[in-house]
């Protein structure tokens, strides 16, 4: 049972490959929708179960299920954003859907295992698909993005394998468990550090974030959205598992430093960005910094982190749905006067920006509220203060987007993509829902996870 969603997803992904060859991209697309949709249903059927499958290679628990649902939901929404966008910017390949499905499958693997090798395999599936996705747009930036992503991704893979080797050297196995956690040896330390580094790469944490701005900027907008939510969710959930079995207490300082630096770096550098996707990239780095605080929280961390991921995912997807509607005219200059000519788009983008900035009554606020409060409760008060101050910095650039749309004049061009609009509505719904009635998710999180 436990591997049902994964099986469905892989099956449909392969089907999509074949259909794309034989029947054309529409079929590939449909198969992808169907695969992700069916997997989502499968995942929901697992709601509340836990257990190990395939000789412990895969293991299902509450965190995994919630993360799986989120990943599949996000992937589905990312597909919706892509749908319609792709033809407008001249991406004719059906692969875009297949690759997204595959990538989602990789992400799903990452969140349903506690086995390092399996996680590595999942991560690589995800990465390989992502490299290809990054390069799908027909311009040099897209290619540059793909190359940078791939090369740096390889480096991250090396880190992971090295870390895995050290882990194996310490404990003699690939399964994450407590045996190793107690070990005080330098090798355990090194292994922890390397594994964390590798996943921090996926999660865009300083100083492993460098790919993020360039890849976000170069990739097609819906793909960027996909990266920013699916990859990040998978990365953070595995980071969570790593820190559950934290290799060595010293690693906490590493996380702490990465968290603080990400908050500072992401927010500060975002201030000067003129390209909205780059801006969103730095925003993504800074949010990663906030989320990393959740890794410091022992058991309490899981639910706040998952809530944050959910909130972040929806608001980011919503924002990218709007960004995609501008069809790669990503300079902020093209957002001038958007509120006049494309009022609905501006309303949505403004709403998501406000949520990203963390204003009530949106999910972004509550996510920050819970996260910061829990971090404070754990005693990291200076960290919370830094987070609060950097949040203030972030307000500047999020609201700057609003300002450009609403308070300056210009002649923007955009197109209303039906499925994009649908995504905006769905995302906005969830952002509000999680912002006003978070209990729907929280009850479950607290009950199963927390």
């Amino acid at each position, binding site marked *: 049972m436990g591997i049902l969603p994964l099986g469905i997803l892989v099956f449909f992904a392969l089907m999509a490959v074949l259909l794309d060859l034989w029947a054309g991209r529409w079929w590939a697309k449909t198969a992808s929708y169907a695969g992700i949709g069916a997997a989502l249903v499968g995942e929901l059927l697992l709601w509340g179960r836990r257990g190990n499958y395939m000789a412990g290679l895969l293991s299902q628990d509450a965190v995994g299920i919630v993360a799986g649902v989120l990943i599949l939901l996000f992937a589905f929404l990312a597909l919706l954003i892509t749908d319609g966008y792709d033809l407008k910017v001249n991406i004719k390949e059906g692969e875009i859907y297949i690759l997204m499905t595959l990538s989602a499958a990789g992400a799903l693997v990452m969140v349903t295992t506690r086995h390092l090798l399996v996680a590595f395999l999942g991560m690589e599936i995800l990465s390989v698909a992502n490299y290809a996705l990054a390069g799908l747009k027909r311009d040099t930036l897209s290619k540059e993005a793909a*190359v*940078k992503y791939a*090369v*740096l991704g390889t*480096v*991250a893979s090396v*880190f992971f394998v090295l870390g895995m080797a050290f882990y194996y050297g310490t404990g003699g196995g690939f399964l994450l468990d407590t045996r190793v956690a107690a070990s*005080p040896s*330098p090798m355990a*330390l*090194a292994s922890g*550090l*390397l594994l964390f*580094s590798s996943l921090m*790469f996926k999660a865009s944490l*300083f*100083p*492993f974030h*460098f*790919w993020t*701005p*360039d890849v976000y900027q170069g990739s097609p907008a819906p793909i960027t959205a996909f990266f920013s939510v699916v990859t990040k969710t998978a990365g953070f959930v595995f980071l969570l598992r790593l820190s559950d079995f934290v290799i*060595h207490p*010293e*690693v906490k*300082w*590493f996380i702490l*430093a990465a968290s603080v630096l990400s908050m*500072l*770096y992401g*927010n*500060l*550098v*975002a*201030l*000067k960005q003129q390209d909205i996707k780059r801006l969103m990239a730095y925003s993504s780095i800074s949010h990663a910094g906030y989320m990393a605080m959740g890794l410091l929280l022992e058991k309490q961390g899981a639910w706040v982190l998952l809530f944050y991921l959910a909130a972040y995912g929806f608001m980011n997807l919503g924002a990218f749905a709007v960004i995609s509607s501008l069809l790669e005219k990503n300079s902020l200059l093209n957002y001038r006067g958007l509120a006049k000519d494309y009022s609905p788009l501006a309303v949505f983008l403004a709403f998501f920006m406000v949520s990203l900035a963390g204003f009530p009554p949106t999910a972004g606020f509550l996510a920050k509220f819970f996260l910061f409060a829990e971090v404070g409760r754990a005693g990291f008060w200076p960290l919370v203060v830094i987070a609060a101050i950097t949040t203030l*910095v972030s307000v*500047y650039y999020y609201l700057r987007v609003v300002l450009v749309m609403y308070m300056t004049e210009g002649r923007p061009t955009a197109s209303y993509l039906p499925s994009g609009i649908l995504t905006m509505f769905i995302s906005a719904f969830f952002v509000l829902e999680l912002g006003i009635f978070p209990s729907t998710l929280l009850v479950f999180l607290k009950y199963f996870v927390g």
Partner: protein
Amino acid sequence: MSLLLSGVLFPPALGALILILLGRLLSKRSVSWLSPAAVGISFLTSLLSFFLIKGKASLYLFPWLSVGGLQVDFSLLWDPLSSIMALTVSGVSFLIHIYSVGYMGEDPGYRRYFAYLNLFTFSMLLLVLAPNLPMMFVGWEGVGLCSYLLIGFWFEKETAANAGKKAFIVNRVGDFGFLLGIFLLFTLLGNLNFDYINYHANSLAPSAATAAALLLFLGATGKSAQIPLYIWLPDAMEGPTPVSALIHAATMVTAGVYMVSRLFPLYARSGLALNVVAWVGIITAAFAATIALVQNDIKRVLAYSTISQIGYMFAGVGVGAVSAGMFHLFTHAFFKSLLFLAAGSVIHALGTQDMREMGGLRKKMPITFWVFTIAALAISGIPGFAGFFSKDQILAQAYIRSKAIWAIGVVTAGLTAFYMFRLIFMTFFGEPRGWKNAHESPPVMTGPMLVLAFFSVVSGWFFSSFHGWLKPLGYIHLEELPESKEALLMGASVGLALLAIGLAWWIYLKRGKGFHTGFIHKLLLNKYYVDEIYNAAFVIPYREGSRLISRYFDIGIIDGTVEGSGRLTLQGGRLMSFFQSGFLKDYALWMAAGVVLALFVMLGRAL
């Protein structure tokens, strides 16, 4: 019976309200009836109350401020002191309302004028009838407001607007003291009713009483134009002349005297405060009189004369003779408003206020001339006229307390006579200078003047009954002076006054021109440069200092810090983006460096 008091207070308020709200709907004619009638009713009711109410009465209306132990009621108090004041105020005000119908007849702001005038009467009566300090302060500020509005009545004239503002602000300085005095009294006594304060004044420490009394007196110097806050009154002559007569001569400016009289036991508790009152009064009297000697603007002469006369009143109260001071207030109300009205009549006819452009008006404006002369004789203290009796009482009482005050007072009386007759000679005698055709004013203006002229003579004849009327207050008493001594003093001041009149006659009629040279003349003409000194000491430093602070501190430093921190953050972002060089190798290098660094740090810590 005490309900009558609402009939005293409220008709003018009602009049003002109607004029403000419905003024546009009313014809000019109905305004001319309504507004004086409102005050007339008030006057009649006061008269009625005066005769019907024996001793004290008070009318409780509603609680005004009632917060945690502070209890200030909106109620009215009728006692000998307030009854005299109310009568004077409503009576003079009524006459001036009538006069104004003629004087302001051509003005486009006719309704506004009468609305303000009614409002003033209301505020003044409120001040007079207030039973406690906060209520008095309401009236106190109310008359200040009306004064502001009426001085700046012709607001299109920059000087008028400035003068109004100046009056208000200078008064505010006084009010600052007044308020602190109220606070201090409340802190000390826990109650702000006059009765309570007066009754318990003796339980206060003298130093506390001094502080409270002097703070209140600061308010009085503002309102009653005494040193150091007298500077607004000469400028206030920018207002219409009937306003000067009513507000800046007869009623409002004497409020300070009234207040000190009201709280006399408090002042008496502190000998120092009383001395300060007396000395400030007498010095102001002399000081203002010297300035009046050389002014050429007819109204400014009268303004300084007013300051001077109020100085007398303070001197009177200050030497302990409340009834004398109040009596001078009473008589002064008639002859000074008459002087203003007569001057107004001249101004109305000629359209100028500069005495150098007048002269020879005696024939053309006989009534004006005669009433003016009566009033001048009254103010100069010529026996038989009202001013003689009141001023004489003050000087006699001053003589008992302090010879110095008496001496200054007598000299000032001489100066008064001199400048008044200088005015008369320059205006009504000699040859016309610069005017073509003048005419006597209409009956609506001369009527009130004649009434006032009558009172300028007879009001002085009743000092003993005045004194007797005030007696029940409990703190009214006069020192007795030997008959012979009194006559001597009287003779001295009267003689000096006659001498001064003669001198004025010699200089301005016989010789034909005044002295226009010399340092002293220039000093007096420029009013001792007090305005300039105040400007340099307060106004300019405040304004320029604020400008500097605004530019360099507020915008420069405070806002600069705010903006600087913002800019610093932006700059920080720009600097940090240096990491994002675009080169793959750099990226990988930073990643590796991060791991290696962390490894070293942690190994270092762990091992």
